């Protein structure tokens, strides 16, 4: 049987794998670039939307709201009554601020909390100072049996543990150990008196300290809340206006090109801004569609092709394949150089992508129902039917024909490159062998 031998097939498979991986790297690079650009388009669309909404609703007054409703037909803007919502919040903020301002822990906050001189702070400092030596005694007396000794009255006449019980001797030993730590006391009774007094005083101090710290915390929380509510009051107008503008913008996004044609006829500046917003929405759709169809899908196919080549490499590495040949015709079909086809496909993508991405002639759009942004962006020279939106438009408007702008500055060479015929474009990335 004639054909290519085992080593030649293996070498060709390795070359094919390298070629496919190189193409994947190229597509990954283009996908990364697309991700960056889509962020730019998003930012531009956001700006266009907020500018249009701000132009349609420049302030939150009854007149401005009526004007915006007239311009857009968006009645919920009036029904939601953003002015009432704003005034409701204003009342609530002012009421709460009033409550806080008469609350002594806020009103007298400086007197209470000023470092070193505030009355609460000073009392905390004093108590801490008094507490320190007591805490020292209490810490020094830390012993697993200390609290028991105090509880059972060890060292006093109340101590009643029988001398034949082990606990009697446990208490005795613990008492001795504690007494050793306080040589100023001659008996445990003396030490006990100090420990009981220390414990009771610490309990009183700690309760007072907790109370003082709670008062300080409440005063701090009130001051924080006052600051937050004052801030909210300062931004009240802007926040409610922005919220109403966002509502309006959300509605504008849901509209088609022709929906505001009549309403915006008398306001050409707003009409241009509206076209700009709609054009950016379309641009984003097209760019995502292009990346999906011409980068992501081929990228998936290449991934599958790479898996297949890897399986074949493993197959042709087995000892039993050492004397196998691949028929010449099959070898030629399997290992034909596809790099040129890949390059053309990428160039076609880049030309189309760039054409759409760079488009800025939004003002040339028409506010009519049978308007296709794709044709305006590409001057009708590029087929966009592979994009779901474009395809759907053509289905809805079977008689639609785009008339080119005679003054268009469209780059013919770009169109030529983007439409260049690639007869194998639909064929498999890797012919089956």
């Amino acid at each position, binding site marked *: 049987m004639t054909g290519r031998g085992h080593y030649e097939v293996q070498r060709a498979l390795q070359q094919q794998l390298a070629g496919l991986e190189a193409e994947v790297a190229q597509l990954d690079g283009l996908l990364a670039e697309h991700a960056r650009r889509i962020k730019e388009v998003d930012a531009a669309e956001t700006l266009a939307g907020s500018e249009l909404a701000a132009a349609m609703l420049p302030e939150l007054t009854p007149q401005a709201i009526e004007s915006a409703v007239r311009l857009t037909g968006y009645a919920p803007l009036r029904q939601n009554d953003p002015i009432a919502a704003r005034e409701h919040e204003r009342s609530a903020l002012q009421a709460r601020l009033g409550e806080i301002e008469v609350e002594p822990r806020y009103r007298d906050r400086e007197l209470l909390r000023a470092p070193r001189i505030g009355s609460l702070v000073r009392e905390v400092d004093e108590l801490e100072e008094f507490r320190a030596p007591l805490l020292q005694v209490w810490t020094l007396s830390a012993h697993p049996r200390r609290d028991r000794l105090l509880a059972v009255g060890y060292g006093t006449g109340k101590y009643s543990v029988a*001398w*034949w*019980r*082990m*606990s009697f*001797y*446990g208490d005795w*030993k613990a008492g001795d150990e504690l007494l050793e730590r306080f040589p100023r006391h001659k008996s445990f009774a003396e030490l006990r008196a100090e420990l009981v007094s220390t414990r009771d005083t610490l309990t009183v101090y700690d309760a007072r300290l907790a109370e003082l710290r709670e008062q300080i915390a409440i005063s701090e929380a009130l001051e924080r809340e006052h600051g937050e509510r004052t801030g909210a009051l300062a931004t009240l107008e802007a926040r409610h206006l922005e919220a109403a503008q966002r509502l309006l913008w959300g509605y504008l996004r849901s509209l088609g090109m022709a929906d505001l044609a009549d309403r915006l006829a008398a306001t050409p500046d707003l009409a241009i801004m509206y076209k700009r917003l709609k054009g950016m929405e379309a641009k984003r759709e097209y760019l995502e569609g292009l990346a999906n169809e011409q980068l992501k899908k081929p990228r998936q196919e290449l991934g599958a092709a790479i898996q297949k080549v890897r399986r074949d490499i493993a197959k042709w590495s087995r000892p039993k394949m050492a004397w196998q040949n691949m028929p010449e015709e099959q070898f030629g079909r399997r290992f034909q150089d596809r790099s040129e086809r890949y390059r053309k496909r990428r160039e076609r993508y880049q030309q189309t992508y760039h054409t759409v991405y760079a488009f800025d002639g939004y003002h040339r759009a028409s506010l009519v129902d049978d308007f296709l942004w794709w044709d305006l962006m590409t001057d009708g020279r590029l087929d966009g039917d592979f994009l779901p939106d474009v395809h759907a438009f053509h289905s809805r408007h079977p008689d639609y024909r785009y008339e080119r702008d005679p003054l268009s500055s469209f780059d013919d060479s770009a169109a030529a490159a983007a439409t260049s015929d690639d007869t194998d474009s639909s064929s498999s990335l890797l012919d089956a062998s």
Partner: protein
Amino acid sequence: MLERCFSAAGFHIEHAFKLAGAGFELVLDGYDPARRVGYEYLTTEAGDRVELTPAVVAALEAAIERGDFHLLLVDELEVADEAELELAAQRFIARLPRP
């Protein structure tokens, strides 16, 4: 350890000594019947907590208080280490009435 301490102090300790009285009957870990002195090491493992019910302990302590005999009652849960037990035994022995 307890046996060593008591023996060092001159007691003739017998193991598993049966001691009975009003309201109690138990087997002591160590006891000198002649001097009526001994000890009982209470452990859960040996079932002492079942045998030495509160009523039995009360009857036993009443007898100790009357001076019928002297027993060091050691609960294993109260012993931190051997040194503590040894000190307790020595102090107990020192408190016993002179023969």
